[in-house]
């Protein structure tokens, strides 16, 4: 048990909160809100949930994830060049690229919600959700050594 274990723990926990939060909202909150609330209140609740989640993303998730991620990569000896190497480097690069795409989708979701384009907002939300599951998949594919 070293401090690095704590850093790794923070990285995994923060990712779990983010992915798990999205899953909970999509699979639990949203269907219940559809069934139990009328249109107006549902929109209100979902907007509030979205805003809170956005604040969490910007204030906690992204800083923790980027900070711990960079630290872990530094400790691992990852360089810009090594990101092109087959194996660990390339998997990490793919994971980072997918993560960026997910962030873009999440950003688009926020914008589309505000701009009153519910279809695009929903599509982007699901894209972000599926993409972040893909990030987890790639994270588990990283060689352990």
């Amino acid at each position: 048990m070293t401090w690095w274990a704590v850093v790794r723990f923070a990285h995994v926990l923060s990712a779990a909160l983010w992915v798990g939060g999205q899953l909970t909202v999509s699979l639990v909150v949203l269907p219940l809100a559809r069934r139990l609330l009328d249109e107006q209140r549902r929109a209100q609740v979902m907007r509030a949930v979205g805003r809170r989640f956005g604040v969490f993303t910007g204030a906690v998730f992204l800083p923790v994830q980027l900070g711990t991620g960079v630290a872990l990569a530094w400790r691992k000896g990852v360089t810009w060049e090594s990101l092109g190497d087959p194996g660990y480097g390339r998997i990490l690069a793919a994971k980072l690229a997918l993560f960026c795409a997910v962030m873009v989708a999440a950003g688009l979701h926020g914008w589309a919600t505000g701009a009153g384009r519910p279809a695009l907002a929903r599509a982007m939300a699901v894209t972000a959700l599926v993409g972040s599951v893909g990030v987890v998949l790639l994270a588990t594919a990283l060689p352990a050594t």
Partner: protein
Amino acid sequence: MTSVGIRIEKGPPTAAPPRRASWHLRANAIVVGWLALTVVVALAGEALPAPRWLLIHVFLLGAVSTAILIWSEHFTVALLRARTPEPRWSLTRLAVLNAGTVAVLAGVAVGPWPVAAVGAGAVVGVVLWHAAVLVMLVRRALPGRFGHVIGWYVAAAGALAAGGTLGGLLAAHVGHGAAHERLHAAHAEVNLLGWVGLTVLGTLFTLWPTVLRTRMPEGTRKASRAGLRLAAPGLAVAVAGLLADLRWVAAAGLAAYAAGALAAAAPLAEAVRARRPHTGAAWTLGAAIVWFEVALAVDLVVVATRPPGEVAAALEPLIPLVLVGFVAQVLLGSLLHLLPAVLGGGPARFKENAALLERGWAVRLAALNAGVVLLALRVPAPLLLLGWALVAASVAAFVILAVAALVRSRALAVPRDGAAEPGDGGPGRTAGRPALAGVAAGCVLTAAAVVVAATGGSGPATTVTATGSRTVEVTLSGMSIRPAVIEAPAGTVLTLRVTNADAQRHDLRLATGERTPMLAAGQSATLTLAPLGETVEGWCTVAGHRAAGMTMRIVPAGALARSTDGPMDAAAPGTGHTGHSAEDGDARAASPDPAAAAPVRLDLAAPFSPGWKPYDATLEPAPGGAEHAVEIRVDDSVVREVAPGVRQRVWTFDGTVPGPVLRGKIGDVFTVTFVNGGTMSHGIDFHAGANAPDGVMRTIAPGERLTYRFRAEHAGAWLYHCSTMPMTQHIAGGMYGAVVIDPPDLARADREFLLVQGELHLGEPGGDAQVAKIREGRPDGWMFNGTAAGYDHAPLKARAGERVRIWAVAAGPSSGTALHVVGAPFDTVYKEGAYLLRAGDPGGAQVLDLAPAQGGFAELVFPEPGTYPVVDHTMRQAEGGAHGLFEVSAP
């Protein structure tokens, strides 16, 4: 998938859809699930064990069999206007079928095979049960216009029962070589033409006119009865012909089947004349029927022109055509037509679902059939890939649309309180569409990232610089790959010349992606590897062969010694034989490492290393004189080849197993100077002498010596062995030999041989692994004169009519022998100092039986030239290496 159905059940009862619809909805979700899995398996391809086999069976046994089970029962009920059988039992059948399927897939792909056999048994049981249910329904129903269809379903079920049984036998590796191939051919024919073909033909009588929206033609019933009467017995005859290796019987049976299929197709053609196909479902089904006829014609030609043993291999190119062109299209066409009806929800909903499912059907149909043509024509690789892409895209499009339709109907089935249903388009549209788009976008992004991550994954190999090149001969035969381990310096560019020396087909696939095509008997292929970086695994991808031991490893030099601390490597740094490397000096084909944890299988048919010489079994006559002075020196660090290709350290007297032979007559005095030139304490014990053990048999330290003097008072074949405890280890290590004292009246023999039999325990002598095996009495093999199967590779010579005397001693340590010569009874047997049988006696003997440490001899006369095996008739021990050959030439 099944969760979809469960939700329906849990929905408020007021809005629950009719029970039958929900049952079929749920069941078809399983079919769609298997189809999706088929696409996944096709995409994963090489990453899976036995990819071809898996693809075929996930599709046929998973998707198609499930669909047939559901629909043949449903149609039977509908056509007979019978009461629906208890849904609980129908679901049980479905569950058992799927469990059996999973067991078969797992058992064959990763093993062990009994799992697959049990799975096949479950499938056969379910299908027989299914047939019984259908028969019962017919019996109970009133006579009707459609009863004839059920006969096809029952015959189809019978076919799967036969095919599943054959499949179980294949999984259990019953039958090798040509017999295996015939079994394979029969399995494929009866399942595809019987289970799938008969079901489809039977269904089409009613389904085809429905799809065309026309009336069933006159004479359908007559055509159906005539067709089934030809097709079912024809198929049975064809399968029996294939199994019994009777080509013309098989061809005749198949011709009868084809005639039956043609008779059945007549009303279908008539229906087309009445109404042209105009829907996606109709065109898809029509295309499927055409492919079926094409495949049947080709099949007939192949069976008629090839011996049954080669049919399976010749039909290989037909597989994509049958699987995709016929089976997949029938399934897609039927689902296209039936799913909207099953999903229910009123005429408007039906129309909407049908429109959704048929979206872009013309393009999908064209893509799929273009793909089938490409696959069937065996075009070059890039075009072949395009063919697969077309097929996969078409199937995937259907799966996505079907899932969308299923999800939509589920959304409908769950009523909403509160939420007002918007009038335009329905909730399914507005809620489902963007989410679906999002899922697709997320999946595409993830797939792209995975592809990027996986490219060039073989990793370090690319950074290894080539340092040289070697060619290694690799042989596939008898459920093993030889050499099992290839060792070469890192950076070597290896070229493997792979030859299939077996009677059945094999291939070789390496973990780095290189693979040979499926090789028929005697065929060869060449693989050139990237510069060697890390250990590379290789195996045969034919179902079950990897589990049966067809594996190999390519290891960078030094990695072998590093990976195991097995002392064997330390004792023999050059461990291995170079038998297969024609012109190489470095690429070594090492024996499997007995110190490794994995159990080692002896490959007694493998060649010995070049330069290997068998222990000379010829027994020289006793030297003259009554006094014999001998020096015997312990050498416990010598490495010898104890079985073909397996070299390991042994403990020896004078460097050989068995030690030197002492021979004399009664009354001779032997003065043995025993020198311990070994690395640990040893002693010696001559059974032929009569001495107090305390002195001469004492254990002496390395470097010491003692004099062991004994007078041979009794005739016989005597054992001598190391007298140091634990004796099991010293004897199993190789420290034994024979003293032969001739009986006074010993007649002349033309040839005399001596066989000392001992157990073979692989591993470092005295090492934990070997000691455990010795203690538990689990030898890895048995040896005549220190080598398992040595005299199979270097036969003993004799001439017909000569009197041959075979002296034998059983060294153990724990098993004796039942020495027997195949084809030549003994006329003289002398065991433990007495004749049991003499030449001229009326009796004969078949075995010279010796308990551990006993000895004797047997005599025989070979009647005619030939090859006569000499075996320990304890067959386990014979097959474990206590086996040799006499090559008898003309006098």
